[in-house]
């Protein structure tokens, strides 16, 4: 494809995406208007009001539930980061072991798959029993929901490394360690990244939910649920928008590019 065409296509794609967002905003405005006309109990925030509230929270730094919005965002991000980091370490470690040994795989894979089936919020009682009503419970829930897809994809990726690469490594004089570092890891990069992306998204979703339920005075999820009492629905909407933006950033910008880059580096893009 000539370069002009490529940019044109990209432009069209972005344009269509923006159009979709605009349609959502238009619908939102309509629904808000209808809702506010039909019943008067509480005000349904319009896009414009949400934007104004966002400005107040972010630029005028008005406090929300006694804390700045930045603090809420940072708290959520921090819990997410810690929980995710734990999940990555355990997930990749366990996945690598399961990928390396069929016996270990048979022992642990059913458990990991069961863990993956448990909805994130079902872990709340266990989190509370283990860690009590504090942020460690949130971190635990993030870690436990993120760890399974990471482990499963790592194990699957390592097991699906074509045998020809293993044999080649052997005849080239690789030790087991060399083979792991130079062959198994690069050959399974893409499935591992895929697991990491799924884990990250799982963690993010359960983080918001956990903050809502645990109610620890800080965090985006907490702020959303607080709107019930403070009737500050605009702020709740702001938080939802922030959650979407952060989620989108990690999934579509960070991971999408990382995966594309790695696919190229690992030579997994199809040649001619």
């Amino acid at each position: 494809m000539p370069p002009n065409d490529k940019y044109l296509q990209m432009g069209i794609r972005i344009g269509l995406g923006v159009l979709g967002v605009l349609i959502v905003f238009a619908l939102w405005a309509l629904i808000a208007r209808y809702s506010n006309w039909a019943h008067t109990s509480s005000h349904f925030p319009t896009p414009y009001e949400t934007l104004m509230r966002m400005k107040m929270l972010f630029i005028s730094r008005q406090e929300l539930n006694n804390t700045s919005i930045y603090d809420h965002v940072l708290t959520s991000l921090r819990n997410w980061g810690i929980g995710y980091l734990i999940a990555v370490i355990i997930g990749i470690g366990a996945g690598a072991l399961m990928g390396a040994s069929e016996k270990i795989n048979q022992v642990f894979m059913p458990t990991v798959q069961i863990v993956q089936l448990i909805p994130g919020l079902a872990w709340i009682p266990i989190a509370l029993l283990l860690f009590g009503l504090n942020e460690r419970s949130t971190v635990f829930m993030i870690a436990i929901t993120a760890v399974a897809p990471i482990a499963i994809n790592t194990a699957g990726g390592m097991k699906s490394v074509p045998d020809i690469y293993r044999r080649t490594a052997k005849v080239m004089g690789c030790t087991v360690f060399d083979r792991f570092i130079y062959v198994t890891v690069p050959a399974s990069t893409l499935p591992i990244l895929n697991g990491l992306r799924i884990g990250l998204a799982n963690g993010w979703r359960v983080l918001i939910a956990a903050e809502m339920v645990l109610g620890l005075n800080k965090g985006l999820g907490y702020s959303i649920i607080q709107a019930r009492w403070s009737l500050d629905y605009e702020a709740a909407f702001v938080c939802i928008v922030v959650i979407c933006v952060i989620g989108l950033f990690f999934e579509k910008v960070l991971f999408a590019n990382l995966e594309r880059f790695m696919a190229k580096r690992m030579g997994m893009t199809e040649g001619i």
Partner: protein
Amino acid sequence: MDMKVKKVDKGFPDPKTGEFIQVLEDVNLKIEKGKFYCLMGPSGCGKSTLLHIMAGILRQDKGKVMMGGKTIKGPSPKLGVIFQEPSIFPWMTVKQNVEFGLKVAGFPRNARSERAQQYLNLVALKGFDDHRPHEISGGMKQKVAIARALAMDPQIMLMDEPFCSLDEQTRRKLDASLVEIHHRSNKTTVFVTHNIEEALLLADEIIMLSMRPATVKNVIKVALNHPRDPYDKLFLMMKKNIASEIDRCCFECATPDFPCSCQEVNLEGQ
């Protein structure tokens, strides 16, 4: 270095039925130093299996394989192996691929870079160092695999149909450069092929395997001088003889419950 295959048996359980299938039965080979051998036989008879055993990455059920008087127990840097499937690592550049064995063996950076360059030149891939495997053609990939094996300076090269997926023209060119390389390095080589012409172009001796369970059926000496002309009278005659022998073998050993794959070893190559 020379190699001996003594009374090697190998079988596999059928992946579906679990029934044991004898693939190699009493295979005996004498590979002499510096010679070029071609290994021929019907598809599925066990050529790759035999080569894997010789390379030390598959255990035979019975018998033994000796190299320079020692029994082979596992893969060795003295054996350079080119597999039937494409095997260069897609996550490395051409040069990194060629350097890989040297890197694992602990060569310092400069030395291995120099040596890799030398072998890339040898297979006429100068200037492609930084290309990635998906950016080069199938024939070039095989050349990278050859350079990678040669760079480790093995005593014996084991090559499993390295050019079988290439077009006739490229194949001939690579065959010619292989003859050249063999002439220069004088490395003992065992080369599996389906192609009679290719075998006649390359080999000092052609080892013919029977159908499964495979044994050595015949060893044909090719006493033609290099460079060989595939249109030379003697060459064409040998080609015809081998082809008719394959046909006869096929006719004799075809049984109803064992579908014959000899037709794949056709007269003109693929």
